């Protein structure tokens, strides 16, 4: 028989492994960040160009055509990011010889996407009511809460990404008009930093 210390630590390890989905790909975070930065650049071009993003807008976001363009871009970024995430994570599970669609991955996805979907509808309502100024904080905060919720079911490092997104969201609520900057910091830069960290720590 093992020493009792060894046995206890093994019990702990198996408990961890049975509840957490650990094959989430770090690279998919980097890709999501890159998509978000490209989208931010486009949004900047539509809304601010040729002024600096810290300055005054040339065209207002309440202009329906631009608003529609922005919404479509955001949806494309979301679909691309989720798609890339699924693809890369699937590849990682194949490499690790585990299943992609398992008890743990289902739990992880449910805990991640329920707050995201709620946040999506809430943000849609904000847009329809014309509260555009609060859209960037709302998306960042809801996304951060979703990550925090999901952090119980995957490698817990993701909770630092969650804290940063929530902090950025709150900050952006107090600096109206700088939504695009906060948005590209949160969905772009933070994702890339997180993705690279996870890649170096677990995927190599």
């Amino acid at each position, binding site marked *: 028989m093992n020493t*009792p210390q060894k046995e206890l630590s093994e*019990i702990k390890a*198996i408990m961890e492994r049975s*509840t957490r989905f650990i094959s989430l790909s770090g690279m998919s975070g980097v890709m999501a960040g890159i998509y978000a930065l490209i989208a931010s650049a486009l949004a900047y071009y539509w809304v601010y160009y040729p002024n600096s993003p810290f300055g005054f807008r040339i065209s207002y976001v309440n202009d329906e055509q631009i608003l529609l363009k922005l919404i479509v871009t955001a949806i494309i970024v979301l679909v691309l990011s989720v798609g890339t995430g699924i693809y890369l994570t699937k590849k990682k599970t194949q490499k690790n010889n585990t299943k992609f669609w398992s008890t743990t991955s289902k739990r992880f996805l449910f805990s991640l996407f329920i707050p995201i979907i709620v946040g999506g509808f809430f943000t849609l309502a904000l847009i329809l009511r014309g509260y555009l100024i609060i859209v960037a904080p709302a998306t960042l905060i809801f996304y951060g809460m979703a990550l925090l919720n999901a952090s119980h079911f995957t490698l817990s490092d993701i909770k630092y990404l969650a804290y940063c997104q929530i902090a950025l969201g709150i900050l952006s609520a107090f600096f109206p008009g700088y939504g695009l900057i906060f948005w590209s910091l949160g969905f772009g830069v933070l994702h890339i930093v997180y993705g690279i960290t996870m890649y170096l720590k677990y995927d190599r």
Partner: protein
Amino acid sequence: MKKQFDKAFENVVRLRIMSVLMVNEEYDFNSFKELLEVTDGNLASHLKSLEKQEFITVQKSFVGRKTQTTYKATPSGKEAFQAHLSFLENLIKENKN
């Protein structure tokens, strides 16, 4: 203290099965197989013996056309596992003294 050592947990596969069921409300056969990296027959016989001891309950259901067998820990199974944990902790304490 010796009397608290449960024979059921002498085997590492059974110990792992119970560990999983302590933190998961339920767990299915295939997920067990994947997590514990054991053969079908080996896993089935250990699950059977835990079931016989009434440490776990079995439920069969259909997912599409496939059957899915899920397992849950019973209250007495959880109690026995807790007792085993305290047994281990006591061993560690005794070794320190």
